[in-house]
């Protein structure tokens, strides 16, 4: 087990290097720093001096990979690649193009993200499992078919409409909670209720439908027939036999997402004005702040890899057949 985890962590290194190289290629090779300077400065100021200035200010005035002018180690370290990409491994994200310290920003903004994403995640799974279990109890009946149709219909609605609809109904028409905003003092929950609700409702269609498929797959297994032959009631078969077995595929699909909850949701946060990492990313995209985008890509990749590792570990916990070596 321990060896397994260590090996997986070692395996993460080439992946992170790959992520790094890929983003580096995207940001510095496909588009040279000159291009970026030109587009950041706009049409008016594109003089060679302005570009050189901008590059110097933002630290893009070095060679890409190899600095032949520097001495010794500096040949490698005094380059854009080292400055902008390798430093990420030390969680040194540097400054954004507007001059803010990205590490501080991330550290403060991840908590509001988590405050929305975690309840959405937990409540969502609970609701989806309950709904799916209810539907599975009536499998093969008209109720089941009707429910599946409703799930598909719910899936077919764009996330944007859930948000807009939720804000319109709950906040504007019924005036139950504020439309958007976030304060850390006082009644934080008031600002959280609606985003969480919207997130949960938007996920029901796809989630409940998926869980239903998993439950049905288990319901067709031989051991369910054995349980029935023992004299188990349908309800106890569902909860004592089908549910524990279906938890295994549910875990694989879900655990991988847990670390990424820190990243928050782009759409929810921007609509509800929550100062989390989701809206941070969106702002970065809109202001074309590539330093932030690069850092977030790196953080996201790390969280995903941690998620994969957690998935494997949770497997051993849920499925006695799996042993990691």
């Amino acid at each position, binding site marked *: 087990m321990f060896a397994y985890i260590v090996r997986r962590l070692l395996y993460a290194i080439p992946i992170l290097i790959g992520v790094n190289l890929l983003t580096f290629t995207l940001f510095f090779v496909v588009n040279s720093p000159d291009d970026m300077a030109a587009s950041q400065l706009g049409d008016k100021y594109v003089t060679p001096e302005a570009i050189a200035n901008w590059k110097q200010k933002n630290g893009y005035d070095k060679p890409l990979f190899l600095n032949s002018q520097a001495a010794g180690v500096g040949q490698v370290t005094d380059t854009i690649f080292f400055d902008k990409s390798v430093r990420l491994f030390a969680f040194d994200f540097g400054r954004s193009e507007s001059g803010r310290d990205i590490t501080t920003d991330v550290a403060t903004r991840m908590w509001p993200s988590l405050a929305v994403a975690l309840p959405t995640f937990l409540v969502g799974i609970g609701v989806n499992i309950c709904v799916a279990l209810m539907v599975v109890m009536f499998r093969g009946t008209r109720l089941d078919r009707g429910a599946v149709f409703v799930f598909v219909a719910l899936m077919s609605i764009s996330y944007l409409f859930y948000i*807009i609809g939720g804000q319109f109904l709950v906040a504007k028409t019924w005036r139950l909670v504020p439309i958007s905003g976030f304060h850390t003092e006082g009644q934080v929950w008031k600002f959280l209720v609606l985003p969480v609700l919207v997130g949960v409702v938007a996920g029901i269609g796809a989630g409940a439908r998926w869980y239903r498929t998993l439950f049905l797959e288990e319901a067709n297994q031989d051991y369910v027939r054995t349980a029935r032959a023992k004299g188990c009631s349908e309800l106890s078969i569902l909860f004592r036999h089908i549910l524990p077995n279906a938890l295994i595929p549910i875990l694989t699909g879900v655990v991988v997402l847990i670390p990424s909850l820190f990243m928050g949701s782009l759409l929810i946060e921007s609509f509800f004005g929550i100062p989390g990492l989701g809206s941070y990313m969106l702002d970065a995209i809109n202001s074309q702040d590539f330093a932030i985008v690069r850092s977030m890509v790196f953080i996201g990749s790390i969280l995903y890899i941690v998620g994969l590792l957690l998935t494997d570990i949770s497997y051993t916990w849920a499925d006695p057949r799996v042993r990691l070596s």
Partner: protein
Amino acid sequence: MKPVLLWSDALIFLLVISLALFFWRLRHDPQTRERWAEVFSSRLGMVAFTIIAAYILVALLDSLHFRRALENPESLATQEVFYDNKVSSVFDVLTGGMGDRFERTYSAPFALLSFEKENIKDASGRDIRDFPPLRHAGQHLAHPDERTADILVKSVSALLWGLLLCALVITPQWLLLRGSALPWAASWLTQGVILCAGAWTVSISHHYHILGTDQGGADVLYQSLKGIRTGVLLGTLATLVMLPIAVTLGVMAGYFKGWVDDVVQYLYTTLSSIPGILLIAASVLLFQVYIDLNPDFFAVGMEKADAKFIALCFILGVTSWSTLCRLIRAETLKISQLGYVQAAHAFGVSHSRILGRHVLPNVVHIILITFVLDFSALVLAEAVLSYIGVGVDPSMGSWGNMINGARSELSREPTIWWTLTGAFFFMFILVLAANLFSDLVRDAFDPRTSLRRAEA
């Protein structure tokens, strides 16, 4: 008239032709035919397919572009023909110029007056502040009160035209297919509804704005209809870009195993570990930078939008192949262990032949299921990307751009709901039909589900 061939036009027609050929080839295989028959033997499948086909037809018609010849002013005595800078499509012609009837700003569905007050001159020539009448709504009415009656009368005549159209379209099908065991009636009913709705829409839109107008005064219904081409093209082209990458890598990894497998696994783990939306956003932004720096590259504005659109399709395709690749790798691993591949090895059949004849044909069902499933996901993704600002060009009509433009308007009093409704309706119907259809396709083609039925 001068035809204009945009890159996306060429691609979509190429795609349709290759799909048609693909299915034409498949028709020999009785198992495949049986499964398709299963998909179409349900009424739901027929209805969903008819709706999707209608959307695709609209998209194709909207992909036949041309520039109108301008009539030379009499003062200009050359024989040279000048063309309109605006690119139109066959679909624009069929809708009877719905897109050319602009107002100044917002107006409600079927409204006669604008939504906002302006300084206008009344009958006596004084300046007053009031709702100005619309330019293209109810011009023929003598009095505003006649509106309801007028709409009713026009609707009835439009529906009669619609029914005639139905008769023309459906009768030949009926003659050809009446002996068929498949529930064609469901399809005909759907076709009938679509045709009647179409006839009604075109004829009414000459006199009213059925779904009102947006901030720029453009007809909302027309914009929603223009969104169809964007949605359908994005859903298919992005998958088309993704398929060859995913299939090649997946099959190679699963078949050759060893270091090939290691490399492919490394590639897709790396790719899928990057948050998708960031990767897409970054790529689109970088392409945007490229376009900004090379403005002379494109003759008309539409070509620029089109290039951006195709780039978006490519980016979506290149960033999303990992899921399919994983599935195909797993399936290929399974197939390589099966008797028929082992037997082929024992017969000394070459690798390329084994891949081509034994492996590929047996992963086609996965490709098909993914194709249909991804289609709806991509249509939904377009809206989100446009909202984030990395979607299709604002000059290109799309549902995402419509939503993006209208989302803040719900908070106005009275609420401006029609733009969102238009986008919602057309998007929802397409995605719902695609989702339902993909469910049926999966049920029919996924060996796991069909196995379960066989056992029962």
